[in-house]
């Protein structure tokens, strides 16, 4: 067998890392959107990704819809799930303690996991890549075309979100809620609706992440928890609440994990990501890229 050059290996791991990292970044962004508006960490965030992947499988493989239609329907379906979650579990529990909110979102995540297992069973599912399965060769590394799709779509999501928060009324209103919910209410922003939108938006982003990663890494019912943990790791590393911090940290985490899997041990790659999460929490809870001052000012 031909030996792959070190450069080739490195390129390969880097691309894998950036791809997986993009997904962590999207999960982290989802955490941040909800956290900024409500100060809730939604433990079911990873479940949105799982649902996105599995619903995409349903629309493409079972319903045999064309790809763009399936993609949009998947996002719509999971967005609906996110909105329902907010209406039925978060909204009725006003003034609940942090401990209660944690347990509620965990309960919802178990429920989603259970429903997914009920519907799809325990086996992982795969869908064909969005375009052609022939890999592209860069510096001796074989890059799947789906990788390009993941990077492209992640970039589009980031740009669209930036525009949403900077240019639209709703985006600005959400920023106001993040800054000071009481003041936002005083100037006539319906905080209640903003919380709903934050859950719907997070769910939509999770759905995108699930739909684009399934052709590469498959999807099964119990993937959510680990995705949520790593996404949270990225969110904390980037400074909880910070939008670009989350993206950078997510990709960084993906690369570290991929390098560890490639050069050290693939079994411990998840442990390395989590160890990093613990270290950041212990040493710099304000995040690697933020300072304490900045972490107090919530910004998307």
């Amino acid at each position, binding site marked *: 067998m031909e030996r792959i050059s070190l450069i080739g290996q490195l390129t390969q791991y880097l691309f894998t890392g950036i791809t997986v990292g993009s997904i962590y970044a999207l999960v982290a962004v989802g955490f941040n959107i909800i956290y900024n508006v409500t100060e809730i960490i939604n433990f079911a965030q990873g479940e949105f990704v799982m649902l996105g992947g599995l619903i995409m499988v349903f629309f493409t493989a079972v319903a045999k819809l064309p790809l763009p239609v399936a993609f949009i329907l998947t996002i719509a379906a999971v967005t609906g799930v996110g909105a329902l979650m907010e209406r039925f*579990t978060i909204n009725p529990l006003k003034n609940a303690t942090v*401990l209660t909110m944690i*347990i509620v979102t965990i309960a919802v995540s178990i*429920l*989603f996991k259970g429903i997914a297992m009920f519907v799809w069973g325990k086996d992982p599912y795969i869908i064909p890549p969005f375009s052609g399965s022939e890999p592209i060769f860069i510096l001796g590394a074989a890059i799947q075309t789906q990788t390009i799709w993941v990077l492209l779509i992640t970039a589009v999501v980031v740009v669209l979100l930036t525009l949403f928060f900077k240019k639209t009324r709703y985006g600005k209103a959400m920023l106001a809620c993040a800054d000071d919910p009481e003041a936002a209410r005083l100037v006539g922003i319906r905080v209640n609706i903003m919380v709903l939108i934050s859950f719907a938006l997070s769910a939509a982003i999770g759905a995108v992440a699930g739909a684009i990663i399934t052709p590469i890494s498959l999807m099964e019912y119990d993937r959510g928890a680990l995705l949520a943990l790593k996404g949270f*790791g990225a969110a*904390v590393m980037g400074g909880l609440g910070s939008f670009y911090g989350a993206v950078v940290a997510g990709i960084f985490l993906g690369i570290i994990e991929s390098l560890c899997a490639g050069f050290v041990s693939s079994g411990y790659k998840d*442990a390395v990501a989590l*160890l990093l999460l613990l270290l950041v929490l212990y040493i710099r809870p304000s995040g690697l890229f933020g300072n304490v001052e900045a972490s107090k000012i919530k910004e998307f």
Partner: protein
Amino acid sequence: MEKSNSKILFALIIFLALFPVVVLNVRAIGHYLDVMIFVGIYSLINLGLSLLMGYAGQISLGHAAFFGLGAYSSGILCTKLSLSPWLAMVAGVCLTALVAYIVGVPSLKLKGHYLAMATLGFGVIVYIFFNEEVALTGGPSGFSDIPGLTIFGLDLNNDLYYYILVWSLVLLTLVFSLNVINSRIGRALRSLHDSEVAANAMGVETSRFKVIIFVLSGAYASIAGSLYTHYVGFLSPSSFDLFLSIKLVMMVVVGGMHNIWGALLGTWLLTFLGNEWLHVFRDFDILVYGAVLLAIVMFLPEGLVGLTPKMRWLWKRS
């Protein structure tokens, strides 16, 4: 001990004494003794978790790891080093308490969601360790032939004897925990549950007490792990996964987080539901668990023990 507590304790002892008598004489439910042993093992963990959550107000989503550390310590020391099971159990407690201390000191400085995620992350790391250290733990397939327990030459490898052993330990731990609650530590804990800032201002060293309770609850879980190992005789990482950590928290919440009796009630109910009465659902127990937990947190935040004052009120009215 408070008067109401000694009454409930007395009732519990009567129930525990009568349980095997009834169960062993009714063929259809003869195996309930086995389920009750598991209830005892999980109760041991949840007594600690209840102290941590209900009294100190700190969440842990990583207690399956402490349970696992105790279980693997016992399993490995007994089979690979042929150590006496009781010594292995003590060694397990020491190791787990040390790990709990090392993890607890930095973790308990974190609050709310951060603490939840940190303990969750810790639990998953330990789970990965059990899976990957094949030479030590046997990896994903685990290892078997772990000897049973004996005491003064008496073989405890019998459901009735094991039931007595496990529940004696639970009762001892329970009495100890009740005393902790009513001690200086307990009062300090309750003060920090209500308002940590106020407690600090009054001169309560909140961080020290939090760590003490965290380590104590880790030690309880470790003993439970050892008891589990010697009862089942077989270990694999899947018994100590993330879902167990969540289930343990669930038992405490369903029974009633702010009440140590609630932890016992929740453990009893959910273990019987999971091991026995929900068998019709087989793999779909996750779905039922999620729904039950959600319903309890949303509609009965006090847990099942929160129902008792209401029932008493209804009783008096009728």
